[in-house]
C-alpha cells in the first residue's frame, strides 16, 4: 500500500514547485494541481478499499524511530473514511474554484494544496504538537484563501476569523505544552495510556485548554460570530471548504482527544454540543442571508456531531469500526459534509444574497440538486441523515439517555423549519432571468448529490430484515422521472399501471384489516388518479410524487418493523408535502403541513425508539410486550397519529394543505392519506390495547378528542366560503368520527371505523373530484361566485347529491350504515355523551352539506357561467365509479360489512348476528336492503303521480319567480350564498374563533422573537467575538468543575 506520507509529499512537492511550473503557463500549473489532488484522492481511495477488504490499522513512523520519540501517523478505517471524503471534497472544491484559480495568482493553488495537506495531517497525526502544526497550516492557508475575495466584508470577516483562530491556537499551544510537561511526552496514544497523570489539577487545566481550543475551532454557540461572518462573506467555494472539509478535520481531532477526557466532563460537553445544535438552528430561523443561514446550519450540525461523538463513546457496540460507515457519526458526517458543501456551491452558482431571492431560472438540474441537499440535511430518507437520526434516537433510548432525545428533536424541527421554508420559497419563485452557468461549477454539487444518493446501500446493515418493497416508492418515482420524455398522459397511465402491478404484488401479503386498507389505497388511488389524466400539459414531478405517496401509503400497513413503518411514513410525508407545494398558493400551507408532519414523525420515532430500548428489537409486534415504557410509547404514538389525523388542536395544517394542493390531489389526501392515521390507531390499539394513566383511560381520552374533532370540524366547515376549505374541514370532522369509533376498542367500534373509512373514501373522492371538475371549468373556489350550475353540470350534480346524502348519513345510502354503527357501538360501550355530541356534529354536517350543494348547483346561475360545459370525462368517470360503489354497498351492505366484521373479529369477539340482509346487534337492527327497497317504493308513488300529469308542467326561465311584484336585481344579489349561516355564526360562532390557529401562530412568533433576541449577541465586532470566546472558556471551565 502506498505510504500515506506521500500525501504530504505530493502536496508539498507540487506546492513548492508550482511557482516555478507556473512559468510554463497557467494551464500546465492547473494540470499539475489537479493531478496532485487526484493523486492524493487516489491514495486515500486505495487505503479505503484496503480497509474494506479487511486490512489492519497501519501506524506510520517517521525519522526511523518509534513513537513517542518521533512523530507517527495512523491510518485506520475511520481515518481512511474521513480522508476519503476530505480529499474527494477537495477535488470537487478545486473544480468548483476553477475559474477563480485560473484568474488568480498561482499562490491560490499553493494555498489550496497546503490546506488539503493540513487537513490530512490533522486527521492522521498522533502527535499532539504535530496536531498544532497541522492546525496552523490549515488555518493559515485558509486565512489567506479567504482573501480570494477582496472586499471590505470578506476581509473584515477574515480578520475576525484570524483573531478567533489565533486565540484558539494560543490556548491550544499552552495546553499542549502543559500536557507535555506533565506526561513527559507528546504522543497521543502514550498520553492516553498514561491518562491518570493528567487527572491532577494542573493536568486537567492543560487538558481543558487543549479541548476548549478545538471546541472553539468547532464554532460552538454562542462564541461563533466570526465563523458566521466568514460563511456569509467569503467566496462560496471557500465557505464550502470551511463547512465541510476543514470542519471534518477539526471534528476528527476532537474525536481523537475524547479518550483523554475525564468521564465527568462528557455530560457537560454533550450539553454544550446540544445547545449549539438547538440555538444555532433557533437563530437560523430569523436569518435572511442564504449563506449565513447555511452557516447557522453548519454550526448546528457540528454541535450535534460533537455531542454524538461523545455519546457514541457510551454505546459499546457501535464502536465496532467495521461498521464505521453505518455509524451514526459517520452518517451524520457524510450527510453534512456533502450536503453543506453542495449548498454552498449552489449558493455560489445562484449568487443571490438573500435566501428569498433564490430562484433556479428554469434549470431542473439545480432544483434537483437543491432538493437532494436540503432533504439530506433535514434527514429525510433515503439520505444518510435519516439513518443517522434513526439510529441515534434508537440508541439513545436503548442506552437510557432519553433526555438527549428532546434537544435533538427540537433542533431538528427548527432546522427543518428554515430549510424547508427556504426550499418552498425557492421552488415557488417566479423564474425570470436566464443565467448561463459554467459547467464546471455544476459538476461538484452534482457529484456530491450523486454520492449522497448512491451511498445509500452502505446503510444496508440497518436494513437487515427489511423488505425491498419499502423502497419501491422511490424506485417508481425514479422510473417515472426517467420517462419524462413521454407525453404527459402516457406517464400518467404508466403510473396507474405501476400502481396496479404493485397492488397485484402486495395482494398476497395483505389480509384482514390490512387488506381493507390496501384496497382503499390501491383501488382508490387508481380511480382517483384517473382524474389527473384530464390535462396533457406537462406537470413536473406530479406523477412521481403521486406514485410515491400512494405506494408509501400502501406500504405502511404492511410494515412489520418500526423501521419499515417509519421509512414508509417519511416517504409519505415528503411526497405529500411536495404535492402541496406544487399547488399554486402552496408555499405557506406546505410549510405548516411539513412542520406538523415532521413533528408527528419525530414523536413516532421517539416512541419506536423507546420500544426498541425496552425490547431490543424493531418488530412492531413487540409493542404489545412493552412494560416500562408502555405509557410513554402509547402517548407518543397517539400524539403522532393525532397530528396526522388533524385532530382538534393540531388541525391547523389541514385546511390549507387540502385546499391549496392541486384539485386532483386533494381527494387523495382527504380520501386516502388521512386514513393512515386510522391505521396508526389500529396498530396502536391492536398491539397495546387499553392503557390507564392515573385516573384516565387513554382510549377514552382519545375518544373525546375524536368527538370534539368531529364537532369542531363540522362547525368550522359551516362557516367556510371556499369550497375546498369546507370539504377540508368536513374531512377533519369525519376523521374525528373514525378516531372516536376506533378508540372504542370493541368489535362494533372498529367495524364502524373501517366501514366509515371505506365509505368516506368513496364520497370524499366524489366530492373533491366533482369540485375539481367544477373548478377546472369556472376557475374559482369561492362558493358565492358559483350558483345554478345544475343545468350546466348535471353529472357533477348527481355525484355531489349522492355524496352529500351519503356523508350526511341519511338513509337509504351507505352513510347511514356508518352512523347507525357508530351510535350503536357508542351506546353499547356506554359512551352516551359522546354519542350525543356526535349526533349534534352529524346534524351540523347537514348545514355545510346543504350549503355546498345549494350554493354551487342551485340558486341563480351567474351570467358569466352561462357558457360553461360539464366537467371533463376524466373527472366524471372516476366519480361515477364511486357512485356505483356507493349504490352497491347501500343496496347490499353485506358486501363490505361482512368482510370488515370478519377482519375485526380477529381482534375482538363479535356480538353481531346476521339475518339475511339484517344486521342485528344487542341493541338494534338494520336491514339496508329493505330500507333501500322501501325508500324506492315510497319514492315511486308520488313520482308517478307527478309524472302522470307532467304534461301540464311548463318549464320557466331563470328569474321567473314570485318576488313580491318586484323584479330581482342580478343573479349576484339574488343568489343567497355568502355568509349563508350568519345566524348560526351569531349563535355559536364564538366556539370556532381562531384561537387554536392563533395559539400556533404565537408559538411560531415566539420562536422567531426568541431567535431575534439571541442573534443580537452577534454584534459584528471582532473584539466582542474575542470576548465571547474568553467568556465561553471561563464559563465552560467553571461548569466542568475542574478540581
Amino acid at each position, binding site marked *: 500500500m502506498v505510504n500515506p506520507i506521500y500525501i504530504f509529499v505530493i502536496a508539498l512537492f507540487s506546492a513548492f514547485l508550482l511557482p516555478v511550473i507556473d512559468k510554463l503557463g497557467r494551464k500546465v500549473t492547473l494540470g499539475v494541481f489537479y493531478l496532485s489532488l487526484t493523486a492524493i484522492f487516489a491514495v486515500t481511495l486505495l487505503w479505503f478499499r484496503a480497509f474494506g477488504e479487511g486490512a489492519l490499522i497501519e501506524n506510520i513512523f517517521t525519522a526511523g524511530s518509534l513513537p513517542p520519540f518521533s512523530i507517527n501517523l495512523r491510518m485506520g478505517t475511520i481515518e481512511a473514511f474521513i480522508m476519503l471524503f476530505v480529499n474527494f471534497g477537495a477535488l470537487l472544491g478545486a473544480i468548483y474554484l476553477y475559474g477563480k484559480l485560473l484568474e488568480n495568482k498561482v499562490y491560490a493553488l499553493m494555498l489550496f494544496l497546503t490546506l488539503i495537506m493540513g487537513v490530512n495531517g490533522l486527521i492522521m497525526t498522533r502527535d499532539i504538537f504535530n496536531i498544532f502544526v497541522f492546525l496552523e497550516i490549515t488555518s493559515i492557508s485558509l486565512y489567506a484563501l479567504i*482573501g480570494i475575495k477582496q472586499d471590505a466584508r470578506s476581509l473584515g470577516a477574515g480578520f475576525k476569523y484570524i483573531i478567533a483562530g489565533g486565540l484558539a491556537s494560543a490556548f491550544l499551544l499552552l495546553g499542549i505544552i502543559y500536557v507535555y510537561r506533565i506526561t513527559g511526552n507528546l504522543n497521543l496514544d502514550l498520553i492516553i495510556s498514561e491518562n491518570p497523570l493528567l487527572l491532577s489539577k494542573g493536568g486537567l487545566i492543560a487538558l481543558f485548554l487543549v479541548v476548549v481550543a478545538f471546541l472553539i475551532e468547532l464554532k460552538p454557540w454562542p462564541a461563533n460570530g466570526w465563523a458566521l461572518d466568514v460563511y456569509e462573506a467569503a467566496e462560496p467555494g471557500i465557505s464550502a471548504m470551511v463547512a465541510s472539509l476543514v470542519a471534518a478535520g477539526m471534528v476528527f481531532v476532537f474525536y481523537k482527544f475524547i479518550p483523554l477526557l475525564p468521564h465527568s466532563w462528557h455530560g457537560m460537553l454533550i450539553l454544550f454540543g446540544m445547545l449549539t445544535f438547538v440555538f444555532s438552528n433557533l437563530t437560523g430561523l430569523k436569518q435572511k442571508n442564504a449563506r449565513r443561514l447555511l452557516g447557522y446550519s453548519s454550526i448546528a450540525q457540528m454541535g450535534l456531531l460533537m455531542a454524538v461523538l461523545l455519546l457514541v463513546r457510551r454505546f459499546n457496540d457501535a464502536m465496532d469500526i467495521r461498521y464505521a460507515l453505518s455509524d451514526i457519526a459517520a452518517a451524520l458526517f457524510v450527510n453534512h459534509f456533502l450536503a453543506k458543501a453542495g449548498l454552498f456551491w449552489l449558493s455560489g452558482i445562484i449568487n443571490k444574497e438573500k435566501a428569498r431571492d433564490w430562484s433556479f431560472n428554469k434549470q431542473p438540474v439545480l432544483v434537483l440538486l437543491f432538493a437532494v441537499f436540503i432533504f439530506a440535511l433535514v434527514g429525510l430518507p433515503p439520505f444518510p441523515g435519516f439513518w443517522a437520526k434513526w439510529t441515534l434516537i434508537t440508541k439513545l433510548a436503548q442506552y437510557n439517555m432519553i433526555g438527549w432525545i428532546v434537544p435533538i428533536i427540537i433542533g431538528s424541527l427548527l432546522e427543518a423549519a428554515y430549510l424547508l421554508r427556504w426550499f418552498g420559497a425557492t421552488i415557488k419563485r417566479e423564474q425570470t432571468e436566464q443565467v448561463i452557468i459554467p459547467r464546471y461549477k455544476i459538476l461538484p454539487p452534482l457529484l456530491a448529490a450523486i454520492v449522497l444518493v448512491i451511498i445509500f446501500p452502505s446503510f444496508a446493515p440497518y436494513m437487515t430484515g427489511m423488505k425491498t418493497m419499502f423502497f419501491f416508492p422511490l424506485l417508481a418515482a425514479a422510473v417515472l422521472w426517467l420517462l419524462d420524455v413521454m407525453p404527459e398522459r402516457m406517464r400518467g397511465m404508466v403510473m396507474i399501471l405501476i400502481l396496479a402491478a404493485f397492488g397485484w404484488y402486495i395482494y398476497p401479503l395483505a389480509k384482514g384489516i390490512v387488506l381493507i386498507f390496501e384496497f382503499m389505497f390501491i383501488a382508490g388511488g387508481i380511480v382517483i388518479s384517473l382524474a389527473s389524466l384530464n390535462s396533457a400539459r406537462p406537470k413536473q414531478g406530479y406523477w412521481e410524487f403521486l406514485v410515491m405517496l400512494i405506494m408509501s401509503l400502501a406500504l405502511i400497513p404492511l410494515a412489520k418493523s418500526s423501521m419499515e413503518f417509519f421509512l414508509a411514513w417519511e416517504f409519505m410525508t415528503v411526497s405529500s408535502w411536495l404535492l402541496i407545494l406544487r399547488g399554486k398558493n402552496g408555499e405557506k400551507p406546505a410549510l405548516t403541513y411539513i412542520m406538523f408532519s415532521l413533528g408527528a414523525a419525530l414523536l413516532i420515532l421517539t416512541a419506536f425508539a423507546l420500544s426498541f430500548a425496552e425490547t431490543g428489537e424493531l418488530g412492531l409486534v413487540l409493542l404489545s410486550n412493552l412494560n416500562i415504557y408502555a405509557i410513554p410509547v402509547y402517548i407518543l404514538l397517539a400524539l403522532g397519529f393525532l397530528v396526522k389525523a388533524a385532530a382538534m388542536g393540531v388541525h391547523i395544517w389541514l385546511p390549507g394543505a387540502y385546499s391549496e394542493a392541486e384539485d386532483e390531489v386533494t381527494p387523495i389526501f382527504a380520501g386516502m392519506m388521512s386514513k393512515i392515521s386510522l391505521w396508526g390507531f389500529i396498530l396502536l390499539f391492536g398491539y397495546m390495547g387499553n392503557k390507564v394513566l392515573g385516573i384516565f383511560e387513554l382510549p377514552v381520552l382519545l375518544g373525546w378528542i375524536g368527538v370534539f374533532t368531529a364537532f369542531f370540524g363540522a362547525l368550522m366547515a359551516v362557516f367556510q366560503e371556499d369550497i375546498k376549505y369546507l370539504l377540508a374541514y368536513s374531512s377533519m370532522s369525519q376523521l374525528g368520527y373514525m378516531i372516536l369509533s376506533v378508540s372504542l376498542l370493541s368489535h362494533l367500534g372498529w367495524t364502524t371505523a373501517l366501514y366509515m373509512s371505506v365509505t368516506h373514501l368513496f364520497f370524499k373522492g366524489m366530492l373533491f373530484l366533482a369540485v375539481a371538475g367544477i373548478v377546472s371549468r369556472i376557475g374559482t373556489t369561492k362558493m358565492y361566485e358559483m350558483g345554478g350550475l345544475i343545468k350546466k353540470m348535471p353529472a357533477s350534480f348527481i355525484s355531489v347529491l349522492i355524496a352529500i346524502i351519503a356523508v350526511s348519513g341519511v338513509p337509504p345510502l351507505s352513510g347511514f350504515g356508518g352512523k347507525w354503527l357508530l351510535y350503536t357501538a357508542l351506546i353499547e360501550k356506554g359512551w352516551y355523551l359522546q354519542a350525543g355530541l356526535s349526533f349534534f356534529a352529524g346534524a351540523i354536517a347537514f348545514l355545510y352539506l346543504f350549503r355546498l350543494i345549494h350554493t354551487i348547483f342551485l340558486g341563480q346561475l351567474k351570467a358569466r357561467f352561462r357558457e360553461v360545459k360539464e366537467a371533463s370525462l376524466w373527472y366524471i368517470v372516476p366519480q361515477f365509479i364511486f357512485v356505483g360503489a356507493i349504490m352497491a354497498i347501500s343496496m347490499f351492505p353485506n358486501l363490505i360489512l361482512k368482510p370488515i366484521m370478519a377482519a375485526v373479529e380477529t381482534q375482538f369477539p363479535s356480538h353481531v348476528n346476521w339475518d339475511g340482509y339484517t344486521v342485528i346487534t344487542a341493541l338494534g337492527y338494520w336491514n339496508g336492503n329493505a330500507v333501500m327497497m322501501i325508500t324506492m317504493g315510497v319514492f315511486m308513488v308520488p313520482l308517478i303521480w307527478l309524472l302522470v300529469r307532467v304534461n301540464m308542467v311548463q318549464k320557466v326561465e331563470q328569474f321567473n319567480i314570485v318576488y313580491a311584484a318586484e323584479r330581482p336585481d342580478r343573479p349576484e344579489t339574488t343568489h343567497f350564498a355568502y355568509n349563508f349561516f350568519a345566524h348560526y355564526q351569531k349563535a355559536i360562532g364564538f366556539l370556532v374563533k381562531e384561537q387554536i390557529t392563533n395559539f400556533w401562530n404565537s408559538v411560531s412568533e415566539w420562536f422567531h422573537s426568541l431567535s431575534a433576541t439571541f442573534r443580537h449577541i452577534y454584534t459584528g465586532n471582532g473584539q466582542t467575538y474575542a470576548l465571547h470566546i474568553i467568556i465561553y472558556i471561563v464559563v465552560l471551565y467553571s461548569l466542568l468543575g475542574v478540581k
Partner: protein
Amino acid sequence: MTIITILGFLLIIIGLWGMLTRKHLFRIILGFSIIDTGIHLVIVSLGYIKGRTAPIFDADLSPIDAINRIVDPIPSALVLTAIVIGLAVTALMLVYVIQMHRHKGSLEISDYEELKW
C-alpha cells in the same frame, strides 16, 4: 524557574487585555503578539531545569551523563516552531489590515461590523 513562567502568563494576560480593549487594528495585532511571546516564555520556562546546561554535546558534556546535566531539549525545539508560526500569523494579520485599510480606509475594529446577526 517559576518566575519566567509567571512572567509569561503575565504577558499573556496583558496581551489579552490589549486585544480585547484596544480599538486600533494594529494594537490588536500587537496584543496578539504579546500573547504569543508570553506563551513562548512559558514554553521555554517549562523545559528549564535549575543548574543544568544546554543540550549540546561538546568537550564538557558527553552523552554518557547527559541525562543528568542537560535541560529538556524538546521545549526548545517546540518553541522554535511556535515562534515561526506566530510570526506567520502576525504577518498575515498585518497583510489583512493593509488590505482592509485599502478597502475601507479605517483602522478601527468597530468600523468592520456590517456583517452581523
